[in-house]
């Protein structure tokens, strides 16, 4: 870090100050607009093709905007709030759901099947080609959801394990995979062979779907709140470490093998992670505000944002993979151009 001229070697970036905790950010499907959900209820739609500073929008949620995804069946975004509302943004925001007393904290979208899923307490509301469905109730509030790569299934993480819902055919029974404890994050592997969770017990838990056999990777200093599979499903990364730590899932799987580790020491504890959709890059944000991009193939990494601005709370790759958006708990958004 003491290298002279280090800051000059950072990729060019654009900074927007929203003034409130960034609880989620995502590009729309064209990559032209960045949607940012903030702690003051605002949902910013930032034009990425135009450098002029955006003016603050009116708050969309009465409370905190907790979550945001690209609309899986059109332009713009879907956002959820602690006001119990699920909104579809566009020229004017439209209310999709209103559940008094529930929080829309987790959303998932699957573009190919144009399906939207939103957690509302112990239930999940799903909008798909065949209309609206409600899944659950689950044994506890659902902590996270993820679509299978082909969009045929939706996995829900909750207390005591995960539930895999079959979306098509709609009458198929869900499958439960049990592991005691509270599961706070869930991700399907891109090859659909595994489901991984982060747990309140400071561990990762992974089920092999063909056999239902599971494995546990423990020893994290804090709970693993975000997970990322490398695009080729060869490595599973999680937050809560100081280095990129990837468990090898190629071939026979990670049993008995150590994880790969790389990165720059001293960045802090990883608080956000996001995998590139088409290449071996992984972006990681830290509690110091630093952001690094690592390569699971070469096991090298580079700092692309220096520490500062609070802890990194959200990361998103643009659809083309040339730009990375960073959000922090102090309301700073940086759009980092990685084309160089």
């Amino acid at each position: 870090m003491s290298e002279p001229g280090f800051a000059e070697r950072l990729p060019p970036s654009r900074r927007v100050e929203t003034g409130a905790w960034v609880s989620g950010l995502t590009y729309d499907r064209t990559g032209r607009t960045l949607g940012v959900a903030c702690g003051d209820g605002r949902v910013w739609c930032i034009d990425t093709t135009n450098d002029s500073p955006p003016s603050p929008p009116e708050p969309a949620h009465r409370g905190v905007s907790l979550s945001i995804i690209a609309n899986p069946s059109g332009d713009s975004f879907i956002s959820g709030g602690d006001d119990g509302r699920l909104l579809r943004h566009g020229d004017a925001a439209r209310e999709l759901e209103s559940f008094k007393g529930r929080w829309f904290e987790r959303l998932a979208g699957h573009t190919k099947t144009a399906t939207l899923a939103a957690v509302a307490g112990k239930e999940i509301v799903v909008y798909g080609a065949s209309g609206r469905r409600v899944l659950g109730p689950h044994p506890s509030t659902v902590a996270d959801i993820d679509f299978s790569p082909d969009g045929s299934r939706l996995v829900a993480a909750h207390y005591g394990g995960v539930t895999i819902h079959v979306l098509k055919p709609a009458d198929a029974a869900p499958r439960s995979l049990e592991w005691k404890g509270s599961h706070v994050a869930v991700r399907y592997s891109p090859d659909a062979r595994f489901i991984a969770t982060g747990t309140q017990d400071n561990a990762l838990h992974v089920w092999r779907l063909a056999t239902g056999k599971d494995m546990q990777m423990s020893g994290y200093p804090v709970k693993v709140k975000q997970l990322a599979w490398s695009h080729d499903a060869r490595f599973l990364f999680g937050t809560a470490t100081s280095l990129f730590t990837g468990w090898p899932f190629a071939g026979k799987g990670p049993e008995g093998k150590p994880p790969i580790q790389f990165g720059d020491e001293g960045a802090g504890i990883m608080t956000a992670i996001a995998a590139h959709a088409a290449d071996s890059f992984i972006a990681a944000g830290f509690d110091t505000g630093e952001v690094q991009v690592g390569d699971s193939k070469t096991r090298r990494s580079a700092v692309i944002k220096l520490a500062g601005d609070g802890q990194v709370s959200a990361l998103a790759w643009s659809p083309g993979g040339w730009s990375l958006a960073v959000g922090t708990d102090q309301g700073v958004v940086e759009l980092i151009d990685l084309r160089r």
Partner: protein
Amino acid sequence: MSQVPVTVLTGYLGAGKTTLLNRILTENHGRKYAVVINEFGELGIDNDIVVGTDEEIFEMNNGCICCTVRGDLIRVIGGLAKRPGTLDGIIVETTGLADPGPVAQTFFQDDEVRTRTRLDAIVTVVDARHFLLHVDDGVEAREQAAFADVILLNKTDLVSPEELARVEARLRQINPYARLHRTQKSAVALAEILGRHAFDLKRILEIEPDFLEQGHHHLHDHDHEHCDDPTHDHHHDSHHHHLENIGSISLTSDKPIDEQKFQRWISTILREFGTDIFRSKGILDISGASKKYVFQGVHMMMDGDWGNLWKDGESRMSKLVFIGRKLDAEQLRRGFAACATR
């Protein structure tokens, strides 16, 4: 990062928790609180935030009861942290039958909750008229009294002075160390329940330099003997009752304590008996140290740190308090005595 103080409000159904919450929410105190309740009730909301949640008790995979946390609280606190501006406090109301353990443990166990908030105090509202009826038919009423830093002995207008004295004696038998306020209609100065810093190691001594000798010492010692001896049990039913008995033990030493021996001993005690030890607190004279060592715990979770300097002329006594169920006084006494420097 400033940590938002959290007050946990417990008490049997109908004891007056909702009345107290309404007082907090409607009083013109100029502060901003968030209140976490089990469901939406008739609450006056002005400047404050009211969040309704289902109590979700999550055990860890290791099955240890002492690692049990409130999953819904972790979520709610994570959400509240995202709001702009700083809250002056969060008040968590528990259901009438709740074990205060998981709520308290959430503030030790979960890293994020620990970063954003600090447990300020456990406040238990007790119905003076019904406490003696409830206290023996389930463990909840006793546990809630045992965990308390502050007890509101409420509805005192509905009982005779003799009844009130009996209730108070029973409360003191369970928990001699909590601050006790006699109230009617939950009327109490908010400063007596909010901003207590009861869990703040650095402040324990500043606020309550004599927290272990608040004049209840006497009563407590006596009651303790009572607990220990089944023949003194006034409830004829019962061996079972005796075994389940909740009480307190205080230990003192005028010999300096060996730090390593103490750490080994206390961690063994909390590991083995943490399920039955609800609260522990202590101030220690560690041999060779110029500062007081203060610690406190909830079940197996424990925090310890160096506090103030011993003053010139101050008697360097070490004091320890355990509140819990089936405490083995003799074993604890022997174990603690063995921590003294030889």
